[in-house]
């Protein structure tokens, strides 16, 4: 276990050390102490290591993560795991806006609630939120899965492309071109696996509804102008 205390070391030293792990270093487990809401903690990591951040973080924690398993033992500021490529990021507390924005792969688990625009423009990431999510979540979401065990705010999935959304609670409103869709066996199977991977095996897929694109706005048609 390698421990870096951000009350004694700089953010630059932390990220520089983490980036060195892609060149064959054998520090598999990392612990970051005293993050105190700092921005850009553990960004750009590209190695199969685990990083435990003991406290709350600011913007963009775990941004563009590849391969690493990063756990925040606290809450996360805006843009956590933005553009994540692979690996796993777990937020034990709540997450602010844009969680998992443009994420392309891997899994983001938020054990608390997420704010607005969760999964905005997501491009392949799987996001599982145990609590609620705010408005405009999955706006222009292209691919991947967003699982919400609580409620979703206004305009869920506005202008969504091919991402799949699963919500257990209430949806305040659906955005343009987002509709409820049938839960077929393959969706139950996918959702069950996502819940299991997120450590939520006590939640049943049968409790969820699925949402996705009506695909009516994929090519412009003036008769749909009211939707824009």
């Amino acid at each position, binding site marked *: 276990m390698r421990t870096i205390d951000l009350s004694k070391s700089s953010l630059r030293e932390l990220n520089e050390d983490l980036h060195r792990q892609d060149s064959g270093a054998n520090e598999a487990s990392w612990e970051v102490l005293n993050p105190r809401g700092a*921005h850009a903690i553990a*960004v750009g990591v590209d190695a199969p290591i685990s990083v435990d951040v003991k406290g709350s973080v600011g913007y963009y924690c775990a941004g563009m993560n590849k391969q690493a398993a990063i756990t925040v033992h606290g809450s996360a500021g805006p843009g956590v795991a933005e*553009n994540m490529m692979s690996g796993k990021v777990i937020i034990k507390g709540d997450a602010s806006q844009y969680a998992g924005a*443009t994420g392309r792969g891997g899994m983001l688990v938020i054990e608390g609630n997420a704010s607005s625009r969760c999964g*905005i423009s997501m491009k392949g990431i799987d996001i599982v939120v145990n609590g609620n999510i705010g408005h405009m979540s999955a706006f222009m979401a292209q691919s991947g899965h967003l699982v919400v065990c609580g409620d979703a705010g206004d305009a869920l999935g506005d202008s969504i492309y*091919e991402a799949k959304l699963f919500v257990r609670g209430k949806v305040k409103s659906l955005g343009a071109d987002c509709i409820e869709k049938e839960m077929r066996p393959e969706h139950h199977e996918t959702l069950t696996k996502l819940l299991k991977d997120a450590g939520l095996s006590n939640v049943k897929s049968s409790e969820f509804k699925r949402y996705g694109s009506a695909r009516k706005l*994929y090519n*412009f*048609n003036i008769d749909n102008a009211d939707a824009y």
Partner: protein
Amino acid sequence: MTYHNPQTTPRKSWTFDDYTLSEIRRAATTGIYDIRGGGTKRHLPHFDDLLFLGASISRYPLEGYREKCSTTVTLGTRFAKKPIELKIPVTIAGMSFGALSANAKEALGRGATIAGTSTTTGDGGMTPEERGQSKTLVYQYLPSRYGMNPDDLRKADAIEVVVGQGAKPGGGGMLLGQKISDRVAEMRNLPKGIDQRSACRHPDWTGPDDLEIKIIELREITDWEKPIYVKIGGTRPYYDTALAVKAGADVIVLDGMQGGTAATQEIFIEHVGLPILACIRPAVQALQDLGMHRKVQLIVSGGIRNGADAAKALALGADAVSIGAAALVALGDNDPSLNAEYAKLGTEAGCYDDWHEGKDPAGITTQDPDLAKHLDPVLAGRRLANFLKVMTLEIQTVARAAGHNNVHNLEPEDLCALTMEAAAMARVPLAGTAWIPGVNGSGGL
């Protein structure tokens, strides 16, 4: 004498001219605004409205082709560990793979590398062809984040955070379904054949304070090696430049409304933004007010066509210029040799702008593999290199004539304006006077 019902000559409306009438009919038929590529076609105040004064007695000229006149420029000297060194102050603007063919991107890389300058990716990610042929490659970080990944960030020589574009400040991309090939669709994580509405704003930041934190994140990911550019559309150049500097930019890219685009609404291209001539001095003023002129470098783009335009931009305070449309013409875009092909598309060389349809006979603004073969990337790259070298010679020529042994020593005092509008926008005297409208009094000689 008999008069036979004399008639006045038929006269068309100045307001409802032929183009306007055709546009009304087109909109009524199709139900969608006109979308096209390229830049503005209307007349705007431009660099042609400025003249160089040259040297006589009060200034001492240098000998052309004999006395040295330096053209090198270093970009990213503020924070980056690895600033970019370019041989010439002319760079290639961001143009996407998707909007352009892979051959065109390769040709841009070849030409720029021969000439000693950089190319820039675009809204669609980095292609191996582009990285492979570009000695110096700037990677655009765009609102759509198509193709964005940390591997390519690390492969880049600089990162350009695109906040706005001169052709469409406040607007997003409009890549229509017909240009979405399998490869483009895969790079953008979208189904083939659907319209792609690239976002107009970044998904994970909402203002200058967020931008500052975003830039820190990008620096941390790339270990503070790469210069971070911030590209802004020319609308509020003083404030946007100041805020970009405050956010930590190493380089500002300022794009005026004459700048081209792959495809967007005609109304954006012709009616939104400021001419580049009106943008440069406010941006330079912001840099000077912050004590950052020449410390944060300024790249100016938007309708730069030749060495004269570039030299005038440098004289007004830019560190470099960037070309897009001119580079495409150098490759072979809108070439008269293709006139028969353009005629089949209902247009002619010099007017072809339906780049979003993907039918470009020059093989440049297309994803059709057969059409793309029309462009030889080696030959086209050579043509671009020639053009860049000619531009550089032209810049040196006027710099020497103004008495400078370095093109970066060009200054506003080397210029005068032919029109009051240009004098006010460029903040140089009206020709034959000392009058700068909006700056000083009525002025004498």
